[in-house]
Each structure stands twice: as C-alpha cells, then as structure tokens.
C-alpha cells in the first residue's frame, strides 16, 4: 500500500462522491420542497447518459453532446412532471413510490426498445483521455479529475442559487408554505415544474458524465439510485448540505472499502478468508454505515431546517 495508490483511491472516491451528489441534490430538493419521492430519478440519469452518447455520435463533439443532453433531459423531466407526477404531490408517499416504480419499468423498456438491451460504449475524445502527471510518479486520469472539479463547481452554484437569488428565495418560501407563496401571487405550479426539470437536468448531467466511464445500459439508473438513497438518509432528507456531505462520505467509504478492505483484512485473518470476506464486506459497507448513523442520529447528519 503506497502513497500513490491511496491518493488515487481518494480521488476516485471524490469522483463517485460528486456524481452521487448531483443525483442526490435533485432528489432531495424535490423531496424537501414538493414532498415527492421520485424513484424514477434514476431513470432521468439513464436518459441523460443515453442522450449524451447519442448526441455525441451525431455531432462528433463530446462537449457539445453532453451540453445538448442537459436541456433534453430537462424537457423529459418537465414532461414527466406534467403528465404523471403533478397529481401525486397531494398523495401519500406509498402512492408516490408505487407510481414512480411504474415509471421506472416504462423508461427501462422504452430505452431497450429504442437503443436495445446491449450496453452502449463510447470512447473519450483524444484530448480528454490522457492522464495528468503530478510529478513524483503520480498521475491521474484527466477526465475523472474534470468530473470532480465540475461537481464542486455545480455544488457551489447550487448553494449560490438557493441561498442568494430571488428564485432560490421563492423555492425556499414554497417549501415552508406553499399556500402563502401562491397567495402572494407566485405561480407555484410553474415553479415546481421548473424545479423538477432542474433536478432532472442535474441527474442528466450525472448521466452524461457517467456515460464514458460506466456501462450505459437499461437499468443503470437503479443501481445508483439506491446508493443515492443511502446518501440522502445519511445526510438528512431535504438538505442540500446534507446531500453533499453524505455523497462525499458514501463515495469515499465505498471506494476505499473496495480498494483496501481486502488487504487490511488479510493482515488480521488468513488471506483465503480475507479473499472471500473482503469483497462481500466492501459491498455492504455503506449500508452498515447507514445503519450506524441512523442508530445514533435518526434524522441524518444535517437535518433540513423547518421540517
């Protein structure tokens, strides 16, 4: 276990963390403000990944393809909100969970019909596929580094929009009292639709960034969705700060666990036992962490104010 490897894994953890954050931010905003549980959030991530890949192939430009995928996913999100989810705001969480579960089946099958069940693979463009040399024998893939920086930039932007702008103020006001904001002359319905679309675009961004490094296939959204649930439960539902902290924690624990748990166990128990137990334990580590945090703080680390 050398320093380079540790550094590399920490960066990998950060990279997973910011992707989880992009997903968790949209989900937690929609939950905190509209009181809606949207299981189909993972489907929007999948849609984003497929659209980005397709646009990339059409335009021949990776950046342009990814940029086009954002408004396209936003539009898909708005359509979903208007057609299916709008009627669910007043219903209980059970109905929301089941209806959005139905949406997942629909989206997975729709994607399979359009693009087939076999995964899509894209190569990064030449200028992004290299590694950045930090000297001292340590280098790290440029693209993953970009993901980390972009993720932090989006987190900062999100904080600014919610805490410092008029739109953010309306959103926060709508969260604490929907009726009052509507009575003051704000079109709350439109606000909700836009907010949902914005969350969808964030999921689409995560999907577009994931496309070149993970497999793009039907059902790819659910795998990350459940990790995002863990993030939100750890961070506290409805809180963006919590989503950020939870995402970085889960990203780091999951990545470092997969990398170092097996060798660490091998020093304690026999190597063959570590060979078997290491991967099993690593894959359930974040859930154990969630159970621990819930036992200590059932509201999560950063519970949203006003709930």
């Amino acid at each position: 276990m050398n320093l380079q490897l540790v550094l590399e894994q920490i960066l990998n953890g950060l990279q997973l963390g910011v992707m989880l954050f992009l997903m968790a931010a949209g989900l937690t905003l929609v939950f905190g403000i509209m009181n809606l549980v949207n299981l189909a959030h993972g489907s929007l991530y999948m849609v984003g990944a497929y659209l980005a890949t397709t646009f990339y192939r059409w335009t021949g430009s990776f950046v342009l393809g990814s940029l086009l995928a954002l408004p396209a996913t936003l539009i898909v999100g708005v359509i979903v909100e208007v057609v299916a989810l709008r009627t669910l705001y007043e219903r209980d969480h059970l109905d929301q969970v089941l209806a959005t579960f139905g949406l997942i089946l629909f989206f997975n099958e729709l994607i399979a019909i359009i693009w087939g069940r076999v995964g899509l693979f894209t190569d990064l463009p030449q200028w992004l596929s290299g590694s950045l040399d930090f000297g001292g024998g340590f280098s790290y893939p440029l693209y993953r580094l970009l993901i980390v920086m972009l993720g932090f930039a989006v987190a900062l932007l999100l904080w600014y929009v919610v805490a410092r702008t008029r739109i953010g103020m309306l959103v926060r006001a709508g969260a604490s009292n929907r009726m009052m904001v509507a009575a003051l002359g704000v079109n709350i319905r439109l606000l909700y639709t836009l907010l949902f679309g914005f969350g969808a675009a964030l999921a689409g961004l995560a999907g577009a960034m994931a496309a070149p490094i993970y497999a793009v296939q039907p059902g790819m959204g659910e795998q990350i969705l459940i990790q995002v649930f863990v993030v939100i439960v750890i961070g506290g539902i409805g809180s963006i700060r919590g989503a950020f902290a939870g995402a970085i924690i889960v990203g780091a624990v999951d990545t470092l666990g997969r990398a170092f748990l097996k060798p660490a166990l091998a020093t304690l128990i026999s190597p063959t036992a570590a060979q078997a137990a290491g991967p099993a334990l690593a894959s359930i580590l974040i859930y154990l962490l969630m159970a621990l945090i819930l036992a200590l703080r059932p509201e999560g680390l950063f519970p949203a104010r006003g709930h």
Partner: protein
Amino acid sequence: MRSRARKLVLLAMLALLVLVPPAAALLHQLFYVDLLRRVMIFGIAAVSLDLILGYGGMVSFGHAAYLGVGAYAVTVLAYYGIHDGLLQWAVAIGGSMLVALAIGAVSIRTSGIYFIMITLAFTQMLYYLGISLDVFGGDNGMRLPERSQFFGLINLNNGTEFYYLVLTILAAVVLLVQRLVESRFGMAIRAAKSNEARSRAIGFSPYPYKLAAFVISGGICGLAGALLVNHTAYLTPDFMQWTRSGEILFMVILGGVGTTAGPVLGAFTLLVLEDVLSGWTEHWQIILGPLLVLAVLFAKRGLAGLLPGGRGG
C-alpha cells in the same frame, strides 16, 4: 352481514383454488397448476406484507429480503446434504425472523419516507451479499440440488401434491394473520398505525408491538421464500432484487390494503397480467408500467373493494 359475505367470498376463492388441478388435468393445461402455485406463493408473501403495511402502517419496500433469506436457507442446507424439509423450512423461517429483527430494530425507529428508503437499502445490501457469495453461485445463482423432503409423506416433485401443500399453507397463513389482526396484539398495532402519540398516552409503547409484527411478517415471507425456491428449483440473488419488493408491494396495493383476500387477489392479478402481456410482446413492461401508474392514481380501494363485504373491518 358484511363479515358473512366476506366469509362466503373467501370460501368461494378457496373452492376455486382447490378445483384448479383437476380442471387443468381435464383440459390438459398443466401449465396453469404451475402458474397458480406461483401466484399462491407470492400471495403468501403479499399477505405477510399486508400484516405490517395494512394494519401496522409500515411501508416495507424490502420484503424481497425475506424471500431471499428463506430461499438461501433451503438451498444452502440442501447443498450440504440436509434435505429434511421440516428442518430446512424451520431454518428459513427462523433466519428470516432474525434478519427482520435486525432490519426492523433500526428502521422502526424512523417512519415515513425514511422507513421506505431504509428497508429498500437493507434489501439491496442483502442482494449484494448474495452476489458476492461465490460458494453459492454468486451472480448466477445455483440449482437447488433436491427439493425439500418430508419423510416420503409429500412429494414436492409431484406438481399437484406441491400445489395442495402451498394452498394449505396459504389458507393457514391467511387465517393466522386474520386471527393476529383481531387479537389484542393486532389492536395494539392498528392503534399505533392510526395515532402513535395516543397509543403512548394510553400507556403502551408501540415500538415492541410494531417490531414483533415486523418479525412475524418476515418469518411468513421467509416461508414463502422456501416455497419459491422449491417451485423454481433454482436459486438466484434476483429473489432479493428490489424490483421484487416493488412487485410484492404492488400486489398488496392492487388487491386492497388491509383486507383478508386482497393481497392474494393482487398477486393473482399482477402475475397473470405479466404472463398475458409477456405472451403478447417482449416489451411488456412498457405496458405494465403505465398500467401500474394508472392503478395507483385511480384504483385507490383495490380489487377487494369490489367484492361483496370486501371492506369489512
């Protein structure tokens, strides 16, 4: 009157289920025995979920976990050469109850959406655990070496005998849950569902009651898992996939939450619908998905609400 009508409906359903194997044999459509056996196994799982969802108000999005634990218990014992059905099924039930105790102890401390997400996450954890168990086939799963054996009394390799065994267990489970719900214990969990603060004020803490109901529900679902792996004769981690939990939840909602016959009706409807749709097109989920959305939006009372006396109690 209402409870009498309900009893009649239940008896009619039972009679229909009893008649399935001879009718199928007469029409040379043995496939239906297989299909209905599957329906009844999922019916048991759905009834177990309804105990905590319909009467206790706990929305578990993780009932596939116990299905998986029950199935793994049977298969692992069979793998090591233990084929005694009573022992296998006892381990399946006991193991599921232990897992339910662990999951319930953490998740019942929370409520609402937290509860849904946590039960879902723990089930996913068990799913990944199943995948990483290479000894038992890992990702691909493994064949059940031999079906459970009952000293030669009941032969599970005989489709009809297995069918009647499942039917008997289903009837027993429905009766058990009904008795539980109407008992003092059932009143306690129903009271906790309608108002936890009031329950506390009357002088009992809802937590142990809810946890007990959760554990019983897990045990019943574990038995369904033991039946399911005998039905498929093949174990895969997919038993614990989260979509499976969603399906069981849907069966309860579709059939009618908090009703006696509802969950079984829901299991019947969903599985037969899946069967019919997948016969039409490979892309049947694109029809099923929106249908489920519509069912949630418009059929609030469930199928049992359509039956005479269905909303008794």
